[in-house]
């Protein structure tokens, strides 16, 4: 992993430690997983979940493309970026439509 993708993997990884910890706290400690609470969080924290979705999707699928590249399957790396776009699009659709 080199250049911008490498730097972004580090930065998104750092950001995720904070974002995921906050997500865990508001879902499992200070909030609940009941439907009303989930829907309320979708509405009240839409910006937070949009950022979390984009950051986590990039980190996950950029990471998978790196693993595939290191295994020597370089031509498959772009598939993960395509899946990343699909996951972000679907996640945003869910966020905006609930």
């Amino acid at each position: 992993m080199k250049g911008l993708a490498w730097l972004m993997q580090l930065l998104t990884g750092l950001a995720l430690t904070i974002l995921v910890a906050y997500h865990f706290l508001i879902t499992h400690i200070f909030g609940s997983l009941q439907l009303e609470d989930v829907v309320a969080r979708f509405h009240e924290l839409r910006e937070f979940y949009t950022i979390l979705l984009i950051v986590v999707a990039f980190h996950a699928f950029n990471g998978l493309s790196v693993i595939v590249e290191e295994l020597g399957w370089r031509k498959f790396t772009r598939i993960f970026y395509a899946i990343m776009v699909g996951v972000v699009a679907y996640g945003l659709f869910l966020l905006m439509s609930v």
Partner: protein
Amino acid sequence: MPSLNTIAFYLHRITGVILAIYLCMHLCFLTTVKTGQYSSLIKVTLSKQFLPFDLLLFLIGIYHGVNGIRLIIHEFGLLYRYRRVLLYSTFIITAVLWIIVALEVIM
């Protein structure tokens, strides 16, 4: 016998793949908020039978996060002299955080 560093490296990769798969499953699960099956499904995932999977997921997530911070520290050329201490600390911090989180979720 592989070194602890090699084990940490492969664990980071394996936990990363599992978390990526979980991300997709999580989005599929959230689809049920829209389709109306969420309330019945969340009862299943909050049941005692599902608790071991939850705890395993927390362990995987905490390890990936703590080990990731260790890797970032070394990538920026910091604390390389203490790499062995940091490596052991990663496993200890993971265990401590996991116990705290597990107790919070169980109680």
